[in-house]
């Protein structure tokens, strides 16, 4: 049994609820920073990929988990960030920090442009429209050959910050730290947003558009902000992805990538920053787990095993834990905190009351 006694409103506002909380996240960050000293180059590459996935996941989580706008088109924004960053560096000779920043900003602006037609679409229809966007993107990349290199693709130049060359192959630790730094900044900004009025407005339009409006929240502006911020972060993830892959073409950014990103945040737990990170870790760990099992059992590679394991996980989560891994872990934590006073039906799923959708 643990009880947190509150004496000041700031305790509900500040970044960490209490000292223990701050220490927990602090040691987690320290562990992440020290990772290059314990992992070999291959595993460090996997860790880097997890961090990039987490950034992309946070981008989509903001839009889908918090603002309630489903997107099956985020591969388009990953592609946009990736290509814009590489083109700005290759053809315009911009330094990496500037090109990287602009890649996010341009994806964000494109996100706002997508938000305008998306204002009239809800749920399934929005999902279909964004899916179409994802399909279009592949074709556009091929057609825009002069810039994108068509089917051959592009290579991302080596990033350099203030004279420090961050070569993904020669200095994987530097590249990992770069990604981690971006991820930490995005996480902080995300967290700040959630404790501010705009973050609450996102939750409001997710849960009830009609009463959000009655509370003075403009649907158009809030959705535009959600799309803009989400696509900006996704664009940054895309830019890092480009450097991570070194060379890429249209085949990297297929619909499958969009779907995988969406399923990743569902498994992690919609509606929380934790969910994006958990989802990224799971997506990153599945191939490793398969490798371990394969080495132990000694069988040859089974094609499609990764995808099917992922699919089975999704089915299990949707059936038994719609709140994702984060929801499950939260329940265990509450159970521990309340021990031994937890009631058996405490986490029973509530049937919600009927509500009219007349004005949607």
């Amino acid at each position: 049994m643990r009880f947190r006694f509150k004496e000041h409103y700031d305790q509900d506002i500040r970044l960490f609820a209490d000292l223990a909380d701050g220490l927990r996240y602090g040691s987690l960050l320290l562990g992440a920073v020290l990772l290059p000293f314990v992992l070999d180059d291959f595993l460090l590459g996997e860790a880097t990929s997890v961090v990039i996935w987490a950034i992309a996941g946070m981008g989509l989580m903001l839009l889908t988990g918090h603002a309630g706008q489903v997107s099956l088109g985020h591969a388009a924004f990953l592609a946009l960030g990736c290509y814009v960053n590489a083109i700005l560096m290759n053809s315009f000779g911009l330094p990496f920090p500037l090109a990287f920043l602009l890649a996010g900003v341009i994806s964000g602006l494109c996100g706002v442009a997508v938000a305008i037609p998306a204002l009239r679409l809800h749920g399934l229809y929005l999902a279909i429209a964004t899916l179409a966007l994802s399909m279009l993107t592949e074709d556009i990349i091929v057609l825009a050959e002069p810039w994108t290199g068509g089917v051959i693709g592009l290579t991302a130049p080596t990033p350099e910050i203030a004279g420090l060359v961050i070569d993904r192959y020669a200095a994987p630790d530097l590249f990992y730290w770069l990604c981690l730094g971006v991820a930490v900044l995005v996480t902080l900004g995300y967290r700040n947003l959630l404790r501010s009025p705009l973050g609450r407005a996102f939750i409001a339009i997710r849960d009830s558009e009609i009463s959000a409006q009655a509370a003075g929240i403009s649907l158009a502006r809030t959705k535009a902000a959600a799309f803009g911020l989400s696509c900006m972060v996704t664009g940054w993830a895309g830019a890092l992805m480009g450097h991570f892959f070194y060379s890429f073409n249209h085949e990297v950014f297929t619909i499958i990538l969009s779907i995988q990103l969406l399923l990743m945040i569902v498994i992690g737990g919609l509606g929380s920053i934790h969910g994006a990170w958990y989802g990224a870790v799971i997506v990153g760990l599945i191939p490793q787990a398969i490798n371990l099992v394969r080495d132990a059992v000694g069988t040859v590679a089974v094609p499609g095993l990764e995808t099917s394991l992922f699919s089975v996980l999704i089915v299990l989560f949707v059936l038994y834990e719609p709140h994702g891994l984060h929801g499950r872990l939260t329940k265990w934590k509450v159970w521990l905190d309340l021990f031994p006073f937890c009631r058996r039906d405490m986490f029973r799923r509530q049937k919600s009351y009927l509500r009219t959708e007349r004005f949607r």
Partner: protein
Amino acid sequence: MTLLETEAVTVRFGGVVALHEVCLQVQSGEIFAIVGPNGAGKSTLFNLVSRFLDPDTGDIRFEGRSLLAQPPSAIAGLGIARTFQNIELFDHASVLQNLLIGRHTSRRASLPAQLLFLPSVRREEIAHREAVEQVIDFLELQPYRERMIAGLPYGIRKVVELGRALATGPKLVLLDEPASGLSVEETRDMGFWIRDLRDRMGITVVMVEHDMNLVSAISDRVLALSEGRVVVTGPPELVQSHPEVVSAYLGDAPEAVK
């Protein structure tokens, strides 16, 4: 002073005339009740004021200015808050967050300031919290602050919805059936609160309500609607005994008895 005024508003849904040339005037500081059988057009009237619907003809004025040019999201900023007949809360957020969303119109911080959570944002958040805590104290919601809406009993949700309306700092609240589905004690508390928010906070109240005991106990004036037309407006006793109101509610019972 007239706070809210509709001028011959008519609303049609296809062939259904939901409101027919309805005129009403709500004075500042009064508790104004709207009664009428199901489908009379009471909620439609509220949705007009909230700007979720456009009238086919007529005008709606608040503090002398027409509301027709305003989008729905501008209404709260003018000082009109409302609750919904079917409770429209933010289900996957806590009571505290729901009430804080009510403070949306008084936010000041820019987007970059929010992303960086500058000290000014922190100060603003604490001010919002203080305003919300006053609402929590008023409505005795202290035990529920951190609870998710999805797990709350119906009666408490009704109170939270009233709280969210009050958190906007309104001049006028529109309450759509505040006591429907509440127990006798909860209805009595709701009656006290509605009267208190007028007496202590100076908020004008327009409410739609079927519970005639509550209506006659707290309202100053009552408007009876039937099939989209105003039957009568006046003090509760008068409206309650008006023959047309009685027949609208009960059908032409006296004839049947004979």
